[in-house]
């Protein structure tokens, strides 16, 4: 009986692996071979819409001037731009810096000082829904460096009345710093250049990532705003928009630099937080995705697979334990081992969830060279990632059982200043 149960579980894990591996193979083929679905960046408009740019900040004195200067230097007409930097209970000079900008650009830069209450991005965004003057809200993290054209490129997505949110591509600025950042840089490229773009091409579920992106205030308000109980308000928003028949689009050409964690503890915390938030979004929205009348079968399937990405690693770990027990008992199914040998390739990364062939394709498109030789080292992160994600899932169960809202813990910044 025990053997039967364990073998059935092993079969289930193998099935999940096969589904993800095949899905990503198809995405890779689509990205490499198929005509790419056009985005809206080629829409030239002399009457650009009014937009609000939100920049949540907590102790961001080191990087605040960089992002605000970059926004002020954009080609977006200043008379149609409103910048709302949120000082979320900072203890450093963030508020002083923001006040200085307000004095110099009172009609454009309008700081919001959160003096108390729930700290974190979801709350800041909910406040932005009330305070923003305009319907289109773009969001950038404080350590990002938006280019001159990115505001226009992202805003043009909202020319399509069905679009509820847009996501650009993040590119690590510190990707060459050390071994970890090099691997994370590979992950990012696969996740955006191939995975997100393929999902956009195929009219599936591209994900709004919470930064280098934006949303339509009216649509977000209609679906109840941002969920304060989750750390992944972006994933939650993506799911709820699609459930209600709205679209999230991906702009592969809207590129912006970001920082990836440079230390293992920072990466562990980041992945744990993503897992915690993402899994919360899974439990909240998976039924809605399946039952939505606005989604096709493949959109529903992709939606479930997308929401489940951070549920899978713990299932894999349990699968390994099951296989170990089956081995002890002398009942290890050969087909399970052979399948795992090949299809575990779908799980070499858990941050942006792109198998090696997706990452390889992305790097080729990006014009990479010798960095491709690092692909096998992605497996070095497998157990580490799985363990971090498992911690996140455990946190999620704790949140659900105890009905608690998680404490927002932002990723540590490595950049010392804006230079």
């Amino acid at each position, binding site marked *: 009986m025990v053997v039967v149960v364990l073998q059935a579980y092993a079969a289930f894990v193998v099935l999940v692996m096969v589904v993800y591996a095949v899905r990503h193979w198809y995405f890779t083929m689509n990205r490499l071979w198929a*005509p790419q*679905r*056009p985005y*809206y*960046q*080629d*829409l*030239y*408009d*002399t*009457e650009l819409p009014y937009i609000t740019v939100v920049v949540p900040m907590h102790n961001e004195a080191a990087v605040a001037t960089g992002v605000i200067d*970059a926004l002020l230097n954009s*080609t977006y007409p200043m008379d149609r731009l409103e910048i709302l930097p949120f000082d979320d209970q900072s203890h450093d000079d963030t508020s002083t810096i923001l006040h200085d900008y307000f004095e110099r650009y009172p009609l454009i830069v309008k700081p919001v000082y959160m003096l108390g209450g729930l700290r974190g991005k979801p709350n800041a965004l909910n406040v932005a829904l009330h305070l923003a003057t305009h319907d289109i809200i773009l969001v950038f993290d404080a350590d990002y*460096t938006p*280019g*001159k*054209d990115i505001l*226009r*490129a992202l805003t043009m997505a909202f*020319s*399509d*009345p*069905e679009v509820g949110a847009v996501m650009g591509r993040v*590119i*690590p*600025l*510190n*990707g*060459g710093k050390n*071994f970890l950042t*090099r691997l994370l*840089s590979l992950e990012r*490229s696969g996740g955006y250049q191939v995975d997100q773009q393929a999902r956009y091409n195929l009219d599936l579920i591209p994900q709004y990532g919470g930064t280098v992106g934006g949303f339509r205030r009216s649509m977000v308000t209609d679906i109840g705003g941002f969920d304060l109980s989750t750390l992944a308000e972006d994933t939650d928003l993506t799911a709820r928009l699609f459930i209600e*028949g709205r679209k999230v689009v991906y702009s592969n050409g809207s*590129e*912006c*630099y970001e920082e990836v964690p440079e230390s293992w503890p920072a990466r562990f915390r980041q992945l744990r937080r993503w897992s915690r938030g993402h899994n919360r979004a899974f439990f909240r929205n998976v039924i809605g995705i399946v039952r939505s009348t606005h989604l096709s079968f493949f959109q529903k399937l992709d939606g479930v697979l997308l929401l489940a990405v951070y549920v899978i690693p713990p299932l894999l770990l349990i699968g390994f334990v099951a296989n170990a027990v089956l081995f002890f008992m002398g009942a290890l199914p050969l087909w399970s081992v052979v399948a795992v040998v090949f299809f575990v390739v779908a799980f070499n990364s858990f941050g942006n969830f792109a198998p090696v062939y997706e990452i390889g394709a992305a790097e080729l498109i*990006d014009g*990479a*060279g*010798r*960095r491709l*030789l*690092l*692909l*096998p*080292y992605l497996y070095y992160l497998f157990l580490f990632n799985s363990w971090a994600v498992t911690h996140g899932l455990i946190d999620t169960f704790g949140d659900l059982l105890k009905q608690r809202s998680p404490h927002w813990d932002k990723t540590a910044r490595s950049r010392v200043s804006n230079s």
Partner: protein
Amino acid sequence: MLAILSVAAFIAVFALPLVPGLFELARPRDNSGLPIQLGYSRDPRFFSQSFRAKIAPLRESGSFGRVPFLDRHDERASLGTLLTLAPKSHTSHVQIAREQLICGAGATMTDGYGAKSVLCGDAVEARTLCSDGTLVLGNGCSVERWVDAESSLDVGNGCSLGMSASSGGVVTLGSGVRFERVFGERVTVRGGVAPSPQRVKDAITLRESDITKSPNVIVRGDAVVLEGTVLDASIKAQGSLFIERGVRIMGNAVARGTLVLLDESIIEGHAFGERGLFLGTNSRIGVPGQGKTAYTAGRAVLCDGATVHGWIVSEQGGWSA
């Protein structure tokens, strides 16, 4: 000893394919971040503005005759006030005229610039053409890369305009003109008529009485907007969008399939047809004084009198009827 060697051999074989990666880690040669052009801003007239900036020193130099061009060892420029290319002549020199450049019928050239005007006869072939004033192309001209005129661009019948045709003023296209991107304050077709695509049988039909004034209209499938409808919002069809005669859409029109705009209809915002774009006789995109875009990742067909205030982009190539 052999036991240890055997284990070592296994480890060595396992590690062998990982060695190239170790070299890259030890001595990184490809670890710089992807370059992002942070200063980039979209400009439909980018090529010509860039070219003008490059030739400005030559133009202002006061030189005449043949001179080196942009430090290239394989190319020279001809400088003058008035430059003329004889019919059916060929030149490999970049022509930079401080006033007027005249190209006789059938002449072939590389790049040409005329500060006040550029006049091309029929069947001229050029790599690029640029004018700070007016630019006229005769019938059957072919531009390989781009053409730009500051005040007006007049394109004869049967011309081929390369990757980009632009003007700071008015662009007029004759019939049978092939293009990819055309930009101007106003782009108008002086051409013929082409048969419009047939409307899809099972399309959802929309008439004004069906459409409430805002919010926007989203149709899950093909859609037909009936004649005379006025829509004060944007419209999107997840299939094709067929807009009948005399319709006025004050917002944007987006179609995942083909966007067909029949005679006398107006879209005051953007027109975005993923698969294709058809602009009927005297149809219009945009509003005078405001630049909008008619975009398709497929092919665009423009009929006589079709006007776009702004940019027409047809990724797979468009033509005027």
